[in-house]
């Protein structure tokens, strides 16, 4: 009889405390399922958390798109200049200064990008803290059901990476698309001049940065959630 067999398996008594079965697990697959469900069910909250990363990554990608597009245009202009036989060796007057100015502009831009990414990381930490506080009772309940601290951390971190991925993807596409439109308006043939391999690489890097940032930003809130004693977590009124 299958039922009886199953019953025996489930109800085998664990009275031997000498060797307490070290069998408390949360498989990654289940953790991922729970996290994913949380993101989907709390989409409003998730979108606010995600908005920070969307904006940060959109800015980063737009800067990179501008860079790749400008390089494409420059290369194209240099080629056409060669084609009509202009002397390459002779520098136009003021080229030296233009180059220095260009470098200063690039440094300013890097600074802006770094700042904006830091701001979005702080934003994510803040919304994750809110989301954790909202769920103290749920965390306490999970601990009562046998969850270890690391399960809670795992669930929150996966949630944050999922959010980071979705947010970065949306941000990267938006930033790239908008900047590309701006350049197309400026010079309609720009798409053909761009190095698309380089552009793709930049987008992938932007996705990586976005996911990494949201992971780092979620660590403090996740630790805070996990370390609450269950009694205190359950007693929280939100």
């Amino acid at each position, binding site marked *: 009889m299958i039922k009886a067999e199953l019953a025996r*398996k*489930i109800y085998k008594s664990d009275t031997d405390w000498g060797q307490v079965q070290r069998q408390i*697990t949360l498989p990654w697959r*289940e953790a991922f399922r729970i996290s994913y*469900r949380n993101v989907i069910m709390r989409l409003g909250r998730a979108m606010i958390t995600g908005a920070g990363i969307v904006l940060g990554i959109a800015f980063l990608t737009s800067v990179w798109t501008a860079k790749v597009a400008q390089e494409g245009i420059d290369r194209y202009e240099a080629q056409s200049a060669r084609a009509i036989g202009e002397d390459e060796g002779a520098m136009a007057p003021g080229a030296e200064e233009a180059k220095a100015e260009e470098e200063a502009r690039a440094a300013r831009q890097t600074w802006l990008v770094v700042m904006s990414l830091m701001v979005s990381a702080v934003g994510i930490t803040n919304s994750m803290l809110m989301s954790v506080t909202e769920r103290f*009772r749920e965390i*306490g309940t999970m601990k*009562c059901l*046998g969850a270890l601290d690391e399960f809670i951390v795992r669930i929150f971190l996966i949630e944050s990476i999922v959010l980071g991925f979705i947010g970065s993807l949306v941000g990267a596409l938006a930033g790239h698309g908008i900047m590309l439109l701006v350049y197309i308006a400026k010079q309609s043939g720009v798409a053909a001049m761009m190095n698309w391999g380089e552009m793709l690489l930049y987008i992938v890097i932007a996705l990586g940065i976005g996911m990494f940032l949201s992971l780092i930003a979620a660590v403090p809130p996740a630790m805070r959630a996990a370390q609450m004693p269950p*009694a205190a977590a359950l007693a929280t009124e939100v």
Partner: protein
Amino acid sequence: MARIECPECGHVEETTGLVTICPNCKADLRTVMAEMGHRRERLREVAHDDSMTTHEYIVRTKDLHKIYKMGEVEVPALKGVDVNIRRGEYLSIMGPSGSGKSTLFNMVGGLDKPSRGTCFIEEVDMAQLDAFELAWLRCRKIGYIFQTFNLIPVMTALENVTLPMIFAGMSSDEMMERGALLLDLVGLGERLHHKPYELSGGQQQRVAVARSLANNPAIILADEPTGNLDLQTGKEIIDLLKELNEESGVTIISATHDLKMIDVSDRVIHIRDGQVERIENRADIDLEVGTLGQ
């Protein structure tokens, strides 16, 4: 001995065997019998196997103290509680709010650490357990039921019930089967895939009862399980707990100030100002309720 009530004439037949025809009106009783059999079989299937257990007391507390620090002020919540809880009993902890019954509940459940004294579960000192062993204890040995149900809001009834089984490392198929079985047992066999907000308070508490049984615990700890329910639903939950207690021998410890609970309790511990005021047995309580009624 089973009590069978005839749906046709209301005749009640007490029997130990099988009755298929009402001796009074000759109505067919097979459906009624089948339903009862179904329920009993379910109960047996989830019943706790305590054939190997030896300790008389499943929970013992020794000189349990808990002091909460509110800024500079120290507030004592428990002032030396010694209770021995027998295996398989239905115990109620009663007391006015602020008396320390929830604190005691948290200590016994391993949800908080005592300031002084210890709590033993099956003669294992909880103070000696590390985080992993405590989690194991909460997962396998104790089932929790709360006043506010505390179901995970984003999960369906079935997922809520199977969550402790995931932690216990049960396989997916086993989990689904057992989860459905437990929900069927508490009368929610039709609502496996409903989310908590789609269920009434009483139904949510039933899911919580099913969840508390997930890993076949030795103890069910219920903190005011009827506190958020109306009279009738509260009564149903109490009956369900009593039935589980009688059929499967699980020890039920319930903090409450619901007087309906007294009726079904084997013993009642009264707590006042962080100390045990008195312990009453079932017999004494019956008498007291009788006098009150007159």
